[in-house]
């Protein structure tokens, strides 16, 4: 007898439908799985046998052949267990085969017959919905996540037995309630924790408002990481579609706890990370840190210590908002719309600008600058120096808190969206030269100052674009349509040292 069960595999971060076909024939007892499965799929034979028997069903002592279709697609992981087991039960008549027609099935099995959670439930649920299934069997732990998809009835089950009962017509158990917030599980870190750091706070706010990538420069221990860590808290809240995308990615990567992700991601990979770890890759291709930071913040601490190849790999993701990974059979696209925040020491010893502590010579500084330079820095609109706060400032109260700043940022973003409506661009940080010249209107004094800086060689053409974008955002934060001299001057003070100008001075 033949049975067919629908399930899904994760390809990159997208679902792909897989049909599990189980055929039982008379013959010597055997259980074969064909269809390009990996080691975890081959091992699932033993899990399924034990799970079926331990759930009080009978394991047919005949010749069982299971096929995972389409046969050309490589199948990875233990997510097919539940579908295979239900297929065996249906093919042996222990479950009505037609009851499976409206269901998609997802989950891993334990030897005892429990349904275990498996990464990527949300992606699978989206795939099931898109493929026209009305209902889906999901392990209980992942039920709330799968239920984020509208128009798909979720049967949250905790065992194979329960799944069979649901297929027999019993009403599935209600979705588990959201877990109560655990104590000590504080929400995002808040700007109110920060003392002093007036200029970096301003830069953080501008970066958040305009979607500008930010470079923090300062001696060790001055608070660069602490500042960067608080950027997500002042970014506008995730929209529902953004939150679903983030949840799907994090679920696939197995770093997601439960339900819908509420906070913007913050990813801070160590500088020893490889290019594949940063932008995704491997076999099968898995999302990298850039994708895990989608709609959030990617923080590269000690950016000068990263391998050149890793940083260069970030170029396409930064430019395009996605990364394409080509494998023999297909190309996978991972979304990578993140804000980049990088931190660096001002010099190799780290103490340039701190009294006389720095012992770095001109050659050291030059080498350091060269390590930093490159295409990635071209994408950094803002540079701010982070200094050690004074003791007096540490003892004073907080100067701002995240919610107030978030409101200002949101208002500034609204202005940008209204202005940029009809373009593919959503914020000032993404404006190209054409949009800059159309939307950044300078008052005469500001125009003159900028022209002076450009003519004297202080500013390169690209540096000028960056200054204009940032000045536009500063004006937006102040709810002003015209960009004034002060806006331009502040933007100039927060610009990167120009490589060309620096070389000329040497």
């Amino acid at each position, binding site marked *: 007898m033949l049975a067919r069960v629908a399930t899904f595999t994760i390809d990159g971060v997208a679902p792909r439908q897989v049909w599990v076909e189980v055929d039982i024939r008379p013959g010597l007892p055997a259980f074969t799985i064909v269809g390009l499965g990996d080691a975890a799929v081959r091992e699932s034979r033993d899990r399924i046998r034990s799970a079926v028997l331990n759930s009080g069903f009978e394991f047919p002592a005949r010749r069982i052949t299971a096929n995972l279709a389409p046969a050309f697609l490589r199948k990875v992981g233990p997510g097919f267990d539940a579908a295979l087991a239900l297929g065996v039960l249906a093919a042996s008549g222990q479950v009505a085969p037609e009851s499976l027609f409206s269901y998609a099935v997802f989950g891993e099995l334990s030897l005892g017959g429990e349904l275990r959670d498996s990464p990527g439930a949300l992606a699978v649920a989206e795939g099931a919905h898109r493929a026209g299934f009305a209902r889906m069997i999901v392990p209980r732990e992942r039920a709330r996540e799968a239920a984020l998809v509208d128009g798909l009835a979720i049967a949250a089950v905790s065992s194979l037995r329960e799944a069979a009962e649901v297929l027999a017509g019993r009403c599935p158990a209600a979705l588990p309630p959201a877990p109560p917030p655990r104590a000590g599980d504080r929400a995002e870190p808040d700007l109110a924790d920060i003392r*002093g*750091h*007036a*200029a970096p*706070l*301003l830069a953080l706010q501008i970066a958040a408002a305009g979607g500008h990538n930010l470079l923090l*420069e*300062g*001696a060790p221990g001055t608070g660069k990481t602490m500042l960067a860590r608080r950027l997500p808290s002042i970014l506008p809240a995730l929209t529902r579609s953004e939150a679903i995308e983030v949840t799907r990615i994090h679920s696939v990567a197995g770093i997601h706890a439960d339900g819908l992700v509420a906070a913007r991601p913050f990813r801070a990979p160590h500088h020893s990370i490889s290019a594949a770890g940063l932008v995704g890759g491997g076999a099968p291709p898995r999302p990298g840190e850039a994708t895990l930071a989608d709609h959030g913040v990617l923080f590269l601490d000690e950016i000068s210590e990263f391998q050149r190849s890793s940083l260069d790999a970030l170029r396409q993701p930064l430019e395009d908002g996605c990364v394409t990974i080509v494998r023999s059979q297909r190309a996978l696209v991972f979304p990578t719309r993140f804000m980049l925040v990088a931190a660096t020491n*001002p*010099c190799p010893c780290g*103490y*340039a*600008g*701190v009294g*006389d502590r*720095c*012992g*770095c*010579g*001109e*050659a050291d*500084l*030059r080498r350091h600058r060269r390590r930093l330079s490159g295409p990635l820095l071209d994408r950094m609109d803002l540079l*701010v*120096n982070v*200094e050690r*706060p*004074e003791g007096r*400032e540490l003892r004073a109260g907080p100067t701002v808190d995240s919610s107030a700043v978030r409101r200002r940022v949101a208002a500034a973003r609204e202005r940008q969206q209204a202005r940029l409506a009809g373009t593919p661009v959503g914020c000032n940080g993404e404006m190209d030269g054409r949009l800059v010249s159309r939307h950044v209107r300078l008052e005469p004094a500001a125009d003159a*100052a900028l022209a*002076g*800086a450009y003519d*004297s060689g*202080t500013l390169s053409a690209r540096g000028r674009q960056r200054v204009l974008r940032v000045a536009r955002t500063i004006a937006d934060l102040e709810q002003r349509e015209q960009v004034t001299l*002060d806006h331009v*001057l*502040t933007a*100039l*003070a*927060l610009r990167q*040292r120009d490589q060309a100008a620096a070389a000329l*001075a*040497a």
Partner: protein
Amino acid sequence: MTGGEPAWHTGRPDEPSTAMNTAGRACDRCLARPWLLERLRGHLDRVRGRIAATLALPDEGLIAAVAGADRERVTQELGGFDAARARVRCRRAGVEPICRCDPAYPSPLTELAAPPAVIHVAGDLERFLALARDDGVAIVGARRASADGLEVATALARGLGAAGLVVLSGMALGIDSAAHAGALAAAAPTVAVLPGGADRPYPAARRGLHRRIQAAGAAISELPPGVEVRRWMFPARNRLIAALAAMTVVVEAGEHSGALITATHAEELGRIVGAVPGRVSAPLAAGPNALLARGAAVVRGAQDVLDRLFGVGAREAAAGADRDPLSPALSRVLADVAGGLDTAAALERSGRRPEQALAALASLELRGYVRRQAGGRFVVVI
């Protein structure tokens, strides 16, 4: 040079030898000397004590003093020296040699105990000879200079260049390069005395500066073109800097800096030595402060140098760069930056809003009053 022979060859064109040709103006005999120095470059690195005294030895004495077991071989090779090849080598490298037999040989160098037999000039030879006749000021100092030191060196060279003086230095990283760059910024010629071959920028990172110096002034060396730098060549070239300059100014130098060797040579030659005073506690001020304690001239700017060279008030340094006058608020910020509140954060602590502090610094930077350094520090441009 040796024994009873006439020490100074006159390389006149009517001499039967092939002493003169298109590649510069150096006679065969003198060209042998730089060849010998190059041949002995490894041995000379082992010389203890003062290299200048060793370099003052005549050829045979020099070979006897440093060549050790190689003595005979080197003497033999010297006997077979081929001047024509040396000239071809110079021509190929674009370097013009001039020897001390030539009447145009820079006279300040003849005051040395042993003037270099040949000066190799990368750049225009005639221009170098004219520059060597002019008043020159050497500006030397530490390689690992501070931002302020570089600023002072640049400004000093700019001021002296604008006043029509020739700035001499060694093109090393730090103060030396800043001095050359300052002179070039004032569109004034400048002379770099290099430790190795004149055609060979040392350090290599100063390729661009080397090119600009050759175009506007000259890069010179006592060694043949292409010679790689050895340790002994640094103190050796320092004596040339000291001799060529009417005054040597040390900007920043540690206690054992090579710049102090230049100053010592200058003192011995009876040249004027000046030093830029620094904070007593700063290690880089130890050198200049020690010189000041020994009686060196205090140099606060180009005017001090001009006063010392030509008499007080005889020549006026050009006024600083033309800059827009500042508003009272910006003047206060500039005074604060000069007074040590030299970062945005420090200015905020003095009661300014961050936007104000940042905008004020940017405004001062645009108008050329301050310059941004690594770590977000600003220095006041002199």
